[in-house]
């Protein structure tokens, strides 16, 4: 073997070795039994996680969520001196924003102009001119997304997920990826719940009765109004629904009011009517339901699902900001013994407030409200010192644990909405992996068979190149710490089919040169030389497509683009450099009269 051949061999072996070395951790991890995987120490686990090819959410199962700050809600919270005009403005704005991907504050400005809304009237603490106000509101929004990310980070850390990723997208979204999470419902609640804890005084029975009567009268008036409308006149269904009135929807459960689950939407319709809102505003009160349904036997002896309904003072005495610690505890005594509760400890300041509130409201009821759902409304028997309180009414230990987590991590400054969600169950992911691997092996087998059948001995060389393309490509993915996704597996399979291309171009060129009467040696040289420009040109354009895909795509698509891109690079290496070396080596050993191609 002459010197240049030896150098080429060594560099090829070096690259092969590097590829195998990069793949070792992934192979070792795959070979471990499930038991052994569970028994890995933290260090070993980190080692395998950082060195192995990562599996994307679509293969491993898990949840991908894009949360967006509820900007209209943020504006609503920041505004002062709100009036009807402002409410109308905000309602239209949030409707427009829901279906429009224009920047929120651009829409905000346009809408304010259209509605002739005097911004300083509502946002005087943020500036005197429109531009100042919008700039300040923008800052508030940026600030809120940063706080939201911090809080979500906190929650996820306490929830315990192996490799969570939390990133900001644009200036009002956050992308959360939790790989391997099985219980998507629980994870979603944990991320999305605002976790706003409010302690509110329950209105006494007399004022509740008064307001129910008032709303009944208003509902009756509304029906007369709608009946004047000729279109509505014949719509008997509609008037029937409203005709039931407010009090007829209510059920008395002990001293509490309740509403049947099937009537919830009617309740919301009534409460959303403008004049009903006015009445409630005037008395400074609101209606909220309990956090979970209760099953009762009704007057007809049937089972009925109901929600308790509370009439509360619309002003939180205390909010979650005063919480210092929250823990799940199993209740030790009383009727609720053995049930999961959340024990809350307040800060010093909070404790003082709590003592004052409980002291001045003895014998009244206080509702513990989490995210606008009433968990419990106990009667205050005596003043409470020390700032401890217990929240009951949890369905399970898990729920209590999660509520404790979100209370500890703090409440979101603004609610968030889910804009995009992709949950993949673990079984679907595992199924995809096994089907993908199977397809890849079958595909590889057929391609190799065909190539050997068509190109004979040279076909073996090309097949050798294809197999090494796959190994090296996987090695590159492991080195890059790239994530393998389902489309990525498709990309691998595609690479098997397409990577033969470079060899086909070369072989066809060599055959042509042979037909033109060249010797084997010079036909090989000419074939490679001429084929290279074609191969580079053809592959680079596919590379461009892959790069664009990478820029554009989200997780799974990015995985595909990565595989496609590196597949091109690696297949050019194996087809041009590796197979060339084999041809050169064989022809240097002895003179070959006829090439098996």
């Amino acid at each position, binding site marked *: 073997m002459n010197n240049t051949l030896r150098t080429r061999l060594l560099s090829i072996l070096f690259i092969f070795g590097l590829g195998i070395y990069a793949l070792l951790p992934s192979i070792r991890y795959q070979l471990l039994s499930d038991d052994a995987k569970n028994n890995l120490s933290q260090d070993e686990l980190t080692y395998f996680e950082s060195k192995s090819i990562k599996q994307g959410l679509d293969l491993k199962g898990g949840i991908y969520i894009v949360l967006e700050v509820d900007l209209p809600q943020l504006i609503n919270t920041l505004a002062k001196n709100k009036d009807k005009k402002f409410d109308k403005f905000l309602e239209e704005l949030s409707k427009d924003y829901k279906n429009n991907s224009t920047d929120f504050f651009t829409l905000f400005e346009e809408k304010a102009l259209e509605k002739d809304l005097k911004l300083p009237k509502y946002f005087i603490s943020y500036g005197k001119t429109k531009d100042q106000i919008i700039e300040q509101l923008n800052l508030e929004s940026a600030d809120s997304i940063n706080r939201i990310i911090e809080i979500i980070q906190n929650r996820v850390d306490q929830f315990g997920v192996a490799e969570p990723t939390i990133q900001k997208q644009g200036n009002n979204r956050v992308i959360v990826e939790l790989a391997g999470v099985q219980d998507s419902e629980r994870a979603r609640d944990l991320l*999305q719940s605002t976790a706003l804890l409010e302690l509110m005084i329950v209105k006494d029975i007399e004022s509740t009765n008064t307001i129910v009567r008032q709303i009944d009268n208003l509902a009756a008036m509304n029906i007369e109004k709608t009946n004047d409308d000729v279109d509505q006149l014949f719509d008997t269904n509609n008037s029937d629904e409203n005709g039931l009135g407010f009090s007829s929807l209510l059920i008395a459960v002990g001293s509490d009011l309740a509403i049947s689950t099937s009537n919830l*939407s009617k309740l919301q319709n009534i409460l959303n009517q403008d004049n009903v809102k006015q009445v409630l505003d005037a008395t400074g009160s609101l209606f909220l339901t309990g956090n979970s349904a209760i099953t009762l036997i009704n007057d007809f002896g049937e089972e009925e699902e109901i929600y308790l309904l509370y009439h509360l003072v619309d002003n939180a005495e205390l909010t979650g900001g005063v919480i210092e610690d929250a823990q799940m505890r199993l209740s030790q005594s009383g009727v609720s013994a053995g049930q999961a509760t959340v024990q809350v400890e307040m800060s010093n300041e909070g404790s003082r407030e709590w003592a004052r509130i409980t002291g001045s409201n003895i014998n009244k009821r206080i509702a513990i409200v989490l995210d606008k759902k009433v968990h419990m409304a106990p009667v205050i028997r005596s003043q409470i010192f020390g700032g401890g309180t217990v929240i009951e009414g949890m369905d399970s230990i898990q729920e209590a644990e999660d509520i404790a987590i979100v209370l500890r991590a703090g409440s979101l400054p603004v609610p968030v909405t889910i*804009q995009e969600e992709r*949950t993949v169950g673990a079984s679907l992911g595992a199924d995809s992996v096994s089907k993908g691997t199977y397809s890849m092996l079958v595909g590889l087998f057929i391609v190799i068979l065909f190539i050997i059948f068509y190109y004979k001995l040279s076909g073996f060389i090309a097949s050798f190149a294809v197999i090494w393309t796959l190994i090296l490509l996987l090695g590159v993915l492991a080195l890059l710490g790239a994530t393998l996704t389902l489309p990525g597996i498709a990309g691998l399979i595609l690479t098997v*089919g*397409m990577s033969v291309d470079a060899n086909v171009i070369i072989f066809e060129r060599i055959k042509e040169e042979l037909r033109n009467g060249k010797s084997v040696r010079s036909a090989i040289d000419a074939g490679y030389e001429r084929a290279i420009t074609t191969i580079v040109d053809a592959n680079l354009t596919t590379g461009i*497509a892959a790069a664009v895909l990478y820029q554009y795509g989200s997780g799974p698509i990015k995985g595909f683009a990565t595989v496609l891109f590196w597949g091109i690079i690696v297949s050019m290496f194996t087809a041009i450099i590796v197979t060339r070396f084999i041809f050169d080596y064989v022809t240097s050993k002895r003179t070959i009269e006829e090439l098996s191609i």
Partner: protein
Amino acid sequence: MKFIENTKIKFMSFKKVGFALSATLGAGSLFLLMLGLNLGIDFKGGTAIGLSFDKEVSIQEIRSVMESISVGDQEFNLSTEEIKYFGSNKEIMIKIKSQDNTPENFGQGIVNHIYKSMPTKVPEDKNMFILSLGAVSPKVGSELSGKAFWSIVSALVLILFYISIRFEFKFAVGAILALVHDIIITLGIFSLTGYEITLSTVAAFLTIVGYSLNDTIVILDRVRENMKSSGTVLFESTINKSINQSLSRTLITSLTTLFVIVVLLMYGGEVIRPFAFTMLVGVIVGTYSSIYIASALLATIYKSSN
């Protein structure tokens, strides 16, 4: 094996037939496109739910369960939404258009309702019941559509740029028109078969762009080489010669690629099927267009400019 060696097919003599065929297919596709494409939730917004039952279920059964679902404090009748089998008779895929007032956690609410309503057919562990759950808001849907569109356009522009530098602008025009042709006809076939367009279909489209171009460039490369040896004059005979010279390569590469795509279609599973289908159509159309659109257009452009 020598069945495709030394062919001397006069491809360009059938140029007009090729143009006519492409024009017909293209016009047909555009017409079908106007009738509408089956856009998935990625682009339209909506909810897609994949469920795995313990026993076989009938679509009708699911429909009746979905007649009345209450999520949050709203009632929905979802019995007319798209429900189909997903692989086997135990697996179901439900697609729900985005609603006007989609409540929070709409998808989960529907899953919970079905889970509660069919207690004898669902697995004990609710987490095993959910195969997949996707929800896209209309806003994100329109953003994703925009991104998909611009990604294809920017890929085309970049490639146009690249070929103009490496070859000539005239070469690039033919190549790009061939790509547009491929995309339109593939979309037409999507419209015809009612296959759904998703994010991974767009990825497949971009791969077709790359693949079809691969083919075109191999031929154009030969044309360039043959032009050099024949004194930069381009005749149809030069193009014929170039296509014939690269014909075996074109066919063999298309074959190996088709092999793996067919394997993917057969064994790759439900999730990957739309992707494999797009690639299948694209590879066939792309191979054809490298010969009859890219090369033939080049011949026509040169003829008219000389």
